């Protein structure tokens, strides 16, 4: 079994951190192979950011696949650019606060979550990636909620206020993901 995941969005949306947290949690809490690959460019700020996560029972070969099982889209330009990579039957996660375009495919599952809105509601736009991670785990269930949360809390800031914020953000995402799965 091999699962290819791609996360894409604007620089500053925590796209890389989301990919890293997910793959780090796999490393910490399973014996599976996992590889995180950040795309890199010459620019230090702005532009698009994307990363690949591969989780596999066998040693990971290609750290970036032509086609992915799960595609997480945080902004509009990324949807147009990467939608073609999603396998038929794959899962598309969309930050529908800012991605308003209609999805031009009907052979994939679509999970919409207004993660930018929720992050603003929680008072910190930085947590949109943690919310999306909640959505992802809630929907796919590829890792236990507890293990994922442990990695999030372990990696992101030890301040009490941040701990609470990240817990809440993750929980809000989980709800959306589970609800979408239940449909």
């Amino acid at each position, binding site marked *: 079994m*091999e699962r290819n995941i791609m996360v894409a969005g604007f620089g500053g949306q925590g796209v890389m951190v989301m990919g*890293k947290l997910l793959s*780090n949690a796999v*490393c910490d809490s399973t014996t599976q192979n996992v590889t995180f690959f950040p795309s*890199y460019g010459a620019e230090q700020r702005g532009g698009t950011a994307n990363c690949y996560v591969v989780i596999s029972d066998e040693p*990971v*070969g290609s*750290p970036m696949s*032509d086609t992915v099982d799960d595609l997480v889209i945080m902004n509009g330009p990324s949807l147009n650019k990467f939608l073609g990579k999603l396998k038929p039957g794959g899962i598309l996660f969309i930050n529908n606060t800012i991605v308003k375009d209609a999805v031009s495919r009907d052979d994939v599952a679509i999970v919409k979550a207004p993660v930018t809105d929720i992050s603003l509601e929680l008072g910190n736009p930085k947590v949109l990636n943690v919310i999306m991670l909640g959505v992802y785990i809630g929907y796919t269930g590829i890792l236990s909620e507890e293990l994922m949360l442990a990695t999030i809390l372990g990696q992101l800031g030890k301040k009490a206020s941040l701990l609470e914020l990240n817990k809440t953000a993750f929980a809000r995402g989980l709800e959306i993901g589970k609800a979408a799965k239940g449909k």
Partner: protein
Amino acid sequence: MKRTFMKGCEAIAEAAVRSGCRFFAGYPITPQNEIPEYFARRLPEVGGQFVQGESEVASISMVYGAAQTGTRAMTSSSSCGISLKSEGISYCASAHVPIVYANISRGGPGVGTIQPAQQDYFQATKASGNGGFRMMVFAPSTVQEAADMTYAAFDYAQRDRNPVLILADGVLGAIIEPVVLPPMRPDEEVSAMKKAQRSWALVGHDPAKEPRSFIEPGHWSIQEQEQSCKDNAALYDSWEKDAQEESLMIDDAEIVIAAYGISGRIARSAVSLLRKDGVKVGMIRPKTVSPFPEKAFDKLNYKRVKAILDVEMSIPAQMVYDVRLAVKDRCPIETCLRSGGEVIRREEIIASVRALSKA
């Protein structure tokens, strides 16, 4: 075994420290900046020294200086930066100064691209500087291998008193994977390793009591220079036993992929998928590209093997020349190549194998 989730560049640096490396000098260049950055944080914790050199040329000279004292010392760079280090690497090889360096290679020639490529094979294995010297060159394909090979590289460098190169690429430098880190050598052991080098090391000797340290990157006497070349040649010949490779499913293979480093790991998963489809494909993945594991190619059954597929992120192909020497015309050799910063796709390799398999 505890798994640590670590970036390739950082695993190389940490493994170096654990192996006893206590000096690093380097100069910024993408995609290897995480190596000097890691050393800058880490070396002070273990009583080591980090210097950001004013250039690649200066950095390798600093490492040449530090390693002469018996200190385990390292530098790193990428492609065009490695070219600049050629001067100092040649000096190290000539003067028998054991250093380790890493090339997190990118597209080329010239400034090329900052994206991953394998365009530096000839430079790494044939001519890393003037004078026809050679080095052991390790080509890791995973973060785990990068850590293990770097750890071992210092031992090989000191065994042979010769530079050792870790030839990686931009993907391997940037990916994060679980790694079981090699054990940290205790301070006492690191000090003892340095002291063991004292007889030849440039640390000061009393001329009245003992032979001085005289580190010669060249010789005034042509007889001595020729003898030095002969000694070097004998050393290089002795490496046949050190060649390492991964031979995967070659027993019944009709198509055999030859690939190293990043291409090798991508090819490995291509082999796995093709085998599930019943395609008789195998792989030889050199882990040392110098010495090249020629003997692994002698183990192939050439009555069965229809073709070798050389897979590289280099255009034109480079390793293919070593493959040809090893295959000795016993079967056709084809190539599957990408470059310019394009990471070769597993699907491309699969398509190439299928085409050869049907032919």
